[in-house]
């Protein structure tokens, strides 16, 4: 554990694309921490790592994460810093970018 974990100070989360910063309590996911502060700078969907609505890109900061849908964050995307805010738990102050959810339009219609 690093020194940042030893106090109960909340972590400062800067959401650059929305120009907002909120304080995320320790032990909360980036998304639930934001909801608790009514900060409204990451879209809220299922809160369970399934729907992808809370997709973000992590620019800076250490974190731990819980299993999340591969349909929304592939291993290659995870390498590049993409994550689901509802499954990401900050370990220090972080800088992130929200609004990375997009619907993949069907390429092919009809029974194949």
């Amino acid at each position, binding site marked *: 554990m690093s020194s940042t974990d030893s106090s109960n100070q909340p972590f400062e989360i800067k959401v650059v694309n929305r120009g907002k910063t909120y304080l995320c309590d320790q032990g909360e996911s980036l998304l639930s921490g934001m909801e608790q502060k009514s900060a409204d700078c990451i*879209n*809220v*969907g*299922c*809160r*369970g*790592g*399934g*729907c992808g*609505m809370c997709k973000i890109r992590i620019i800076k900061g250490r974190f731990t994460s*819980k*299993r*999340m*849908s*591969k*349909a929304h964050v592939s291993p290659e995307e995870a390498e590049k810093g993409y994550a689901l805010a*509802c499954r990401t738990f900050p370990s220090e102050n972080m800088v992130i970018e929200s609004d990375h*959810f997009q*619907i*993949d*339009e*069907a390429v*092919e*219609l*009809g*029974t*194949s």
Partner: protein
Amino acid sequence: MKKGVMRPGHIQIRVLDMAEALEHYRDLIGLIETHKDSQGRVYLKGWTEVDKFSVVLREADEPGMDFVGYKVLNNQVLEKLEQELIAFGCNVEAIPAGELDGCGRRVRFDSPTGHMFEIYAEKEQTGKWGVSNVNPEAFPRDLKGMKATRFDHCLLYGPNIAGTIQLFTEVLGFDIAEQVLDGEGTRLAGFLTAGMKAHDVAFIEHPELGKFHHSSFFLETWEDVLRAADLISMTDTSLDIGPTRHGLTHGKTIYFFDPSGNRTEVFCGGDYHYPDHEPVTWTADELGKAIFYHDRVLNERFLSAVT
């Protein structure tokens, strides 16, 4: 039931963590855990259901629905419909008896919306859980959580619902009980029934293939729906919306999410449908009221959060 399809039989749902999923489906919704198979899939059912299971949970990397299955009257019906599905142009796969423990041969087929469906004729019947079939008591006394009585229906999102609705009505004999039409008369949503219920499956037009909006479980009363809302708060479960009423089907409802982000509904009430009934129509300009009769506005999450 015109073509011999009786009712929804089972749904297989993918979850990210089985232990967490069981806290949701078994301990919170109150389904009965009936079996675990050699692949680690867990089988559950509502206490009033006579078959051995209706919900199968499978741990996977990506939440969503693997397939939903409908029970048909007998094996002759199964064979006849299998041929008709092939003639319709579906990719059809025969799943041998026992692939799901306790279930007979299944016929699996794809659909224009990208969902996988199944029909089957036989499944082990263990009877209602906790009550006898002779001089039955009103209910078993040791039910958990919301005490859901049965798996009722699912709502699926995908492109070309016209194609899948044609498959369900023409080949499987479902009726359109309710629908949403836009100004040009294009169907944006269809609620389909194999029997008298307001819906056994529903489809909403959406650009992505094969998306799962929710599975739904039946409760008896509005009081039960309010108690479900209390339990959602007590367990700090992710709430979507409700308690409220739908305009479509007029069911009284609440929506929430399982720990993997799959949406769940519990509801009571709702309209009924006979084969001679015209479909009930909601117009797209009243879509808010059609979906949420009290709020009369849609929330973005209800439209976009699918697995």
